[in-house]
């Protein structure tokens, strides 16, 4: 593997590249006899457990005695008849192509995209490995022994006639030839720039790349298989059953051992496997001998004699397994290379004389039955252990650094170490640690990887200074924590000083400065981009009022709610006083008269009624709409109803309906009201209510007071004399007022009064509060006017203006409020009059009036005292009954006047109903409509009940009865 430096620093990053090197050596594949041209039979990649037979393919009806070779996902194997098969390993051994090469071929050799095959007839053929196209062919005149070697760009073969011949790979052109005094005994090995050739009679020669003899020595017995070379030694197994190790450089004998079990000498016909530590030789008897590679000491030796033939299938080894063919039992064994214990066996069914191939963790065995069997390793390709450490430049290890290799992530331990298991391949690497510049690079793995040492340079930071200010006024905000979140996980915090100033540092790149919601200010954030120099005068502007999900700025309700509480408390006290008086009058103290019980029952029924009404709305608003829009029924029940739910599925349709309705009810009654949107405000519904309910109540109260003040005397007078002038006039005027839409009345009022209003107050008649232009012209927003046109502390603009003594503000607000109230009253008075005059006329005819008149009571007194008090409770009842009309009118008027209020947002969301039907699919707009309907129902039901109670309390007859 070539050294691969980590890539240069990315633009904007400061770190110097770290050089990372890793080396590994391993043949990728099994391309020749005994795996590689050094004939070691060793694959550092792991091998299969043999538990999994991936596939088996019977290719030929002849023996497969030349070992298979593998390159990538193609395997080549030849049968004794002389047909070479190309097999697709990805497709369970299906044959890609086959070619005839001559009888009894030797193990093929793969060179690049060329497949070389030699036969006993002396043919040497080259094919395109992919397509099987014949490239060239030679006839050597005598048989090639055991295998073909490729070294230094030349094809080298040894023949039974004792010739060693070299040819060019591309065309088969003759390069050199060398004669041996005896037939070549086995395949030629190549290692360390030398070729090692054994003679059948027992010589071992080392040749240079060009064919000259470097050294020659005697093995001492006949040799029938290739020597295994590597790590400075050449290991030869001979027919006398000995294993000898010679120095690669000069051929001197390092050691020799005999596999002499019980004095029985045996032959070796298979090339020993050579690992970095050991030599494994299998004797013809089948027993296996493990020797220390350096000393030749016997590590272990299996007993038994179970192979009836010469053992031609060479053993092969991995770092943790040894595979041998046990022909006596027709099996393939996996052995522990350390102990010789048989870990697993796989049945072959017949003899196997071809050496198995081991590639990319899979083992391929060819048998005399003409079949090829593949054993796969469970769990994908072999993974190398890749470890390393991350340390700081000129410092110690970095704990918690994030190491990413090809998408896999690891965090370094306290000592900076990390570990991965990686298959062969090329990986992008990124190392990030807080406070350090990241390091980028790539890693190529094709063998064992030495530990990586990654050194990170500290992140270079620049000063970032600025101030936290109010967005509205620019006033400094002190004591706010400013958090900077920069690239590479860099964070820093600072607290603003009394001048709102802060000082931080940030690395190159984009950082986000943020402040949390503090006091009356919203959370704020902004980004800064550092590019090689510090930044000063950064302004973080926080808008007034709270941000945040369900956090409510209670500026309005904080005052209004206590008032309500006080009212309730007063009511309780009054009830107690009433009770006391009842006792004093000799009556039972219980308030639970039949009427009281009726009231309690109705109060209890209010939520029930509300739920039933909401069910109607829900059915229309959700179920029908879903159905009509061809949406699945469960759209409002995400996570509860499968998205594939269909309308024909009754179970999930009803689940969707009941779940959705249950959720609606639960959320409405528990105040989980979601969000609403008005203009550029997107706030919780509760926030809008907290902002706007007080001002809407203020407007409503004023409009109601005006309406009552106008309608009550007119109704009394008109009803008192139905035949008089006032009655028909009042009726006609009220009818016209009734039918002139409130928006038209409102617009006409705005229209008519706009010039004088502008002239007097310098502001348009629109809106509730003065416009922005007015505020700007009058010295900016005062501190008690906040987001959403809210005023503090009460939320009632008229009251707050007075409290702060801002008379200019008060004038504008009063004018606008009166204008709106007048528009509301013009409609409401008409509605009210219409009902009220009947009541007065009826009351005027009652006997007690006639009796009083007969007693000589003054007519004015009869009207204002007797009749007026008589009809007052009925008027109160009437107000309760017509409250919905009143609320609707107020909503329209607020909308027309562009006055942010309950009515405005209600209408806005009501008209957006189709876009946002009833539902709680998240913090969406559109929830206010449901909340408003809910509140309206509660309000109207409650007001009706309250007006019943109030009417009874005001009725003089009831009081007398009590």
């Amino acid at each position: 593997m070539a050294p691969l430096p980590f890539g240069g620093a990315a633009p904007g990053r400061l770190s110097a590249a770290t050089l990372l090197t890793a080396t590994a050596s391993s043949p990728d594949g099994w391309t020749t006899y005994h795996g590689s041209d050094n004939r070691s039979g060793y694959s550092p990649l792991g091998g299969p457990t043999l538990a999994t037979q991936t596939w088996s393919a019977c290719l030929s009806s002849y023996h497969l005695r030349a070992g298979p070779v593998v390159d990538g996902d193609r395997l080549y194997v030849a049968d004794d008849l002389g047909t070479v098969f190309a097999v697709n390993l990805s497709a369970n051994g299906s044959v890609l192509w086959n070619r005839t090469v001559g009888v009894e071929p030797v193990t093929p050799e793969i060179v690049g995209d060329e497949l070389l095959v030699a036969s006993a007839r002396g043919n040497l053929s080259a094919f395109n490995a992919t397509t099987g196209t014949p490239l060239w062919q030679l006839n050597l005149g005598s048989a090639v022994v055991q295998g073909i070697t490729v070294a230094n760009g030349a094809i080298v073969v040894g023949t039974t006639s004792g010739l060693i011949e070299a040819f060019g790979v591309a065309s088969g052109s003759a390069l050199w030839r060398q004669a041996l005094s005896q037939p070549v005994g086995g395949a030629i090995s190549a290692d360390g720039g030398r070729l090692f050739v054994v003679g059948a009679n027992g010589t071992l020669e080392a040749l240079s790349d060009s064919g000259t003899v470097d050294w020659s020595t005697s093995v001492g017995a006949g040799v029938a298989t290739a020597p295994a070379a590597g790590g400075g030694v050449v290991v030869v197994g001979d027919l006398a059953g000995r294993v000898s190790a010679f120095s690669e450089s000069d051929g001197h004998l390092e050691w020799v051992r005999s596999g002499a079990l019980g004095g029985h000498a045996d032959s070796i016909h298979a090339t020993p496997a050579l690992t970095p530590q050991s030599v494994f030789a299998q004797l013809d008897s089948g027993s296996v001998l493990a020797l220390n590679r350096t000393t030749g000491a016997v590590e272990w030796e299996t007993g038994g004699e179970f192979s009836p033939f010469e053992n031609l299938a060479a053993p092969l080894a991995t770092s943790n397994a040894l595979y041998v063919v046990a022909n006596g039992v027709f099996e393939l064994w996996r052995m522990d290379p350390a102990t010789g214990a048989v870990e697993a066996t796989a049945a072959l069914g017949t003899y196997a004389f071809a050496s198995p191939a081991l590639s990319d963790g899979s083992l391929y065995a060819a048998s005399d039955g003409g079949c090829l069997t593949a054993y796969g390793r469970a769990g994908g390709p072999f993974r190398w252990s890749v470890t390393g450490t991350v340390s700081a430049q000129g410092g110690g290890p970095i704990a918690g650094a994030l190491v990413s290799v090809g998408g896999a992530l690891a965090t370094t331990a306290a000592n900076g170490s990390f570990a991965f298991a990686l298959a062969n391949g090329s990986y992008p690497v990124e190392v990030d640690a807080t406070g350090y510049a990241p390091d980028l690079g790539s890693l190529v793995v094709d063998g064992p990887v030495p530990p990586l040492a990654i050194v990170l340079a500290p992140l270079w930071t620049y000063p970032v200074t600025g101030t936290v200010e109010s967005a509205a006024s620019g006033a400094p905000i002190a004591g706010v924590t400013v958090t900077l979140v920069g690239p590479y996980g860099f964070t820093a915090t600072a607290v603003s000083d009394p001048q709102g100033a802060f000082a931080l540092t940030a690395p190159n790149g984009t950082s986000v400065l943020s402040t949390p919601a503090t006091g009356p200010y919203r959370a704020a954030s902004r980004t800064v981009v550092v590019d090689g120099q510090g930044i000063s005068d950064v302004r973080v502007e926080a808008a007034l009022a709270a941000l945040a999900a369900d956090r409510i700025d209670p500026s309005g309700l904080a005052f209004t709610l206590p008032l309500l509480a006080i009212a309730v408390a007063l009511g309780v006290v009054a009830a107690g006083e009433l009770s006391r008086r009842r006792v004093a009058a000799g009556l039972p103290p219980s308030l639970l008269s039949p009427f009281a019980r009726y009231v309690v029952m109705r109060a209890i029924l209010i939520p029930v009624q509300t739920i039933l009404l909401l069910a109607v709305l829900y059915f229309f608003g959700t179920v029908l709409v879903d159905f009509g829009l061809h949406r699945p029924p469960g759209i409002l029940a995400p996570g509860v109803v499968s998205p594939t739910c269909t309308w024909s599925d009754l179970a999930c349709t009803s689940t969707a309906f009941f779940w959705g309705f249950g959720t609606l009810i639960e959320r409405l009654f528990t105040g989980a009201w979601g969000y609403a949107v008005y203009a550029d405000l997107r706030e919780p519904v509760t926030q809008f209510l907290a902002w706007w309910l007080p001002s809407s109540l203020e407007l409503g109260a004023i409009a109601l007071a005006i309406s009552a003040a106008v309608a009550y005397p007119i109704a009394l007078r008109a009803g008192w004399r139905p035949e008089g002038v006032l009655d028909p006039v009042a009726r006609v005027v009220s009818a016209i007022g009734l039918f002139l839409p409130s928006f038209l009345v409102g617009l006409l009022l705005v229209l008519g009064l706009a010039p004088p209003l502008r002239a007097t107050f310098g502001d348009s008649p629109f809106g509730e509060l003065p416009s922005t232009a007015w505020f700007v012209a009058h010295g900016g927003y005062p501190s008690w006017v906040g987001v959403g046109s809210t005023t503090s502390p009460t939320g009632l603009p008229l009251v707050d203006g007075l409290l702060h003594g801002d008379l200019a503000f008060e004038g504008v607000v009063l004018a606008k409020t009166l204008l709106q109230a007048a528009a509301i009253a013009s409609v409401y008075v008409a509605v009210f009059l219409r009902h009220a005059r009947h009541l007065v006329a009826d009351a005027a005819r009652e006997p007690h009036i006639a009796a009083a008149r007969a007693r000589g009571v003054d007519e004015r007194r009869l009207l204002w005292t007797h009749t007026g008090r008589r009809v007052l409770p009925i008027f109160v009842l009437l107000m309760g009954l017509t409250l919905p009309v009143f609320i609707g009118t107020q909503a329209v008027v607020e909308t027309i006047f562009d006055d942010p209020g309950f009515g405005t947002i209600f209408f806005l969301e009501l008209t957006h109903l189709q876009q946002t039907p009833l539902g709680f699919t998240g913090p969406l707009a559109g929830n206010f409509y449901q909340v408003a309907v809910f509140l309206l129902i509660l309000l109207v039901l409650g007001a009706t009940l309250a007006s019943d109670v109030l009417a009874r309390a005001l009725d003089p007859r009831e009081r007398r009865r009590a």
Partner: protein
Amino acid sequence: MGRRRALPPPPPGRLPADGPPPRFRRPLVERFRYLGGNPELWAGAIVLALFAGAAAFALGSDGAAIDRLPLVAGLVTPGPAAGPSAAHPLGVLHVASGGIDELRALVQAAPFDLGIVGGILGGAALVGLLLGGVAGAREGGGLDLAVTFFTDLLAGVPPFLLATILLVNVEVFLRPAAYLPVFVLLYVLVLWPAYARLVRARAREVAQRPFVEAAEASGAGAVRVLRRHILPNSYAPVLAQMPPDVAGIFFVLTVFPFLACFGAPSGNPVYPLLTPLPNGVFPEWGYLLAQGTCHGWSVAGVGAWWMYAFPAATIALFGLAVALACDGVEKYLARAHAG
């Protein structure tokens, strides 16, 4: 009950000895006796008759094209504001798609508005009267409980609001041509309990009166008692309730189209069109008023007063006529029953 009239003598030979009592019929001329001294009734009836005449004229003259307002030639896109003139006595009104002759538009709209108002009020009053009357007459019965339940339930929401919500949600199923009839139906659906509630209260009281007892004692069946005695004495609250409901109907028909066209002065919120009308050139007073106010205000400025003044006057006149007629009928009934 006032003075009792003597029964007319039975025609000779037509009274069986023990047959059912004769059906009592007030002579027709008697009924007109109370029409005098009732200017409300006359005024309301005459104006309503004029509206009916206009509706009949529109149906006759516009025929199949009645549901589409013809755009004035040359004003396909809103042009300069054209006030009242000989060619256009009430001026030209701008709608979104162009200019229309205002007089013709108002006349053409008459049959639809009479239909909408008549359908809703008639339907709701009829259902409310029947159910409320029966419920009141049989207080505590099953029907009474059901009617009370519905009336209490729906008292929580203004009818115009409920009808709007239901319409919006039902519209997705409908062809535009069906919007208006369905709107009328839905409105009846949400409005009848309001009438039933009033009628029930009155009928409950009437049912206690001596003449009802007398009728029952003389063998009158439940239906006869209801028809002849209870219902005729329970009309009044229905008549009082009708004019505000007319206003409520026009509220829906006017406010939402207006908001859609006008928006808010700040221009921030956008209101989608919410109307039961099937198309943008449908003749309907509320829609004309909304368009007139919107365009008369924003396009032509304050000067285009005729765009909203005439539709508003039309609606107000119609409402006034309904109110007067209701008052007149109430007065008539009160006198007739008082004898």
